[in-house]
């Protein structure tokens, strides 16, 4: 709370409803996610799942390749799955914030009657999961480097490309998360599956763990309509350096072209998220769904 108070006391933050809502929501989200256990147990819970999920793929790969890891396909699968942790965390994070506030803590009515920027609040609630997800990604990649000789070297990483693609990727994921959260506000059933369904679809269609060429031709195009496909490709190129460029997926695009495509997706999604959010809140209020408690 000390850090949060310091941030909230920065003059331009104090004067802005949006920034105050964002910072306070980020603090609240962090408390909800982390304060149920001591830090060590929380850390264990945070990285056991992603590591286990990674090891499933490692064992699958090892069984077929008879123990061989470390070739380009293995690196492709490993990095894609590690980075995908962020996708799941951010997309489902915002919709879960809506579910938590509405169904579990039952405070949605109070939240919507307080003088705050609720869009920024939802974005802020996603920050906690972003932090946890980022830590999991780092741990998973470090684990890969140490145990499976994943060729990610600090001196080879294209840092500007990595950081730029990371910012764009996170913004586009946050926008998708806000859209999911907005739709959740209007749902009385299956709301807990929405984020997971979208994240699952992205896992399958973006080539997170296999090259897009493996998908049947009639569904392959779906991957090209999703920003995550381009983000994963850019991040792989940034982290793996020259060894990543050999993959057939999106090989015809240069880094600059991929950045351009991802930027366009991010912009469109951010604008769309604002409109969808406003429309969803209005619909939820009109239909009396804003403080619905379904116990579903």
């Amino acid at each position: 709370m000390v850090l949060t108070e310091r941030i909230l006391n920065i003059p331009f933050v104090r004067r802005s409803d949006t920034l105050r809502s964002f910072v306070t929501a980020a603090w609240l989200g962090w408390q909800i996610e982390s304060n149920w256990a001591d830090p060590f147990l929380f850390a264990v819970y945070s990285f056991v799942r992603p590591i286990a999920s990674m090891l499933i793929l490692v064992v699958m790969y090892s069984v077929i390749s008879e123990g061989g890891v470390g070739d380009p396909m293995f690196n492709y699968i490993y990095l894609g799955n590690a980075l995908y942790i962020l996708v799941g965390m951010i997309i489902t994070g915002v919709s879960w914030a809506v579910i938590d506030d509405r169904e579990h803590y039952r405070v949605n009515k109070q939240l919507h009657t307080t003088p705050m920027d609720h869009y920024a609040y939802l974005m802020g609630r996603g920050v906690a999961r972003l932090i946890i997800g980022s830590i999991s990604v780092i741990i998973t990649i470090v684990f890969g480097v140490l145990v499976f000789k994943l060729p990610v070297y600090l001196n080879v990483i294209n840092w500007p490309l990595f950081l730029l693609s990371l910012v764009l990727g996170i913004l586009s994921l946050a926008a998708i998360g806000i859209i999911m959260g907005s739709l959740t506000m209007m749902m009385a059933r299956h709301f807990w599956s929405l984020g997971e369904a979208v994240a699952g679809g992205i896992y399958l269609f973006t080539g997170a763990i296999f090259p897009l060429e493996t998908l049947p031709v009639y569904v392959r195009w779906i991957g090209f309509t999703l920003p995550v496909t381009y983000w994963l490709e850019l991040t792989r190129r940034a982290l793996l350096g020259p060894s990543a460029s050999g993959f057939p997926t999106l090989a015809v695009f240069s880094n600059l072209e991929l950045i351009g495509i991802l930027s366009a997706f991010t912009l469109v999604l951010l604008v769309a998220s604002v409109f969808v959010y406003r429309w969803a809140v209005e619909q939820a209020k009109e239909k009396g769904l804003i403080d619905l408690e379904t116990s579903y």
Partner: protein
Amino acid sequence: MAESMLTDVAIRSTPRVEKARGFRLFWATVWARAYPRIVGATREMSWLFFETLLPLLSVAAYVFVYKAIGAPEDYIGFVVVGGAMTAFWLNVLWSMASQLYWDKDQGNLELYVLSPGPLTAILLGMAVGGLVMAGVRAVAILVVASLVFKVTYAVGSIPLLLLTFLLTMSALYGMGMMFASIFLASGREAWHLANLLQEPIYLVSGFYFPVKALGFWVATAASIIPLTVGLDAMRQLLFTSDPTLGFLSVEVELGILVVLTVVFISAAYFLLAKLEEIGRREGRLIERRR
């Protein structure tokens, strides 16, 4: 006085409802708890879409991984069968193990405790209802994924396969009944515990690859989870590929499942009684703050 006589006559003329006791009470309680899960599921079918679509997506993703690395065809079948069995594991985690905790949160647990029905019957009812729901989901995944990915099965003995499945379910839901008490005692950590027991169990139980690949000792330790041996036995009975892919022989795995069934159901009975006793004594059984 006249009013009192009328009441007396009314009471005498009303046929007496026989109070359910013993097995009848147990069975009525089981059915009462299973009812909302079985009948309720048919009242609003939209759950089928989400319950089958979500696991199908991950099953498809793992199938494409095997395709991308050129795995033999039987491995596609391994993933499909493993993916179908995730329905039961998720059901045990979220609708059995976590259920009493959620019931406490929603205020139902105190009604269960106050009712004359035994808590074990309530848990069994939850298991029966959950088994039906998860069964529908598993069949849907199995059928759709088998058709989409053209999986071929070579079933040697259908009765043996059915016996394996039934024993796996008995042991698994027995484990779920046991977990229900443990999760209830763990309070807010129940949610995180259930989350934690997903991917790590998919890994150690070999949901997407033969468990033998993990090595003898890991596979042996993982055999405490009924799905590890159950899935391994079912794969041996469903696919003709290299018989050495099985961890243990089907007969041995059936024996392990019988032992696990007895142990888990006994433990569930004991733990539930213990938890109820401690909860009543300390007044924490229906406390919702934890």
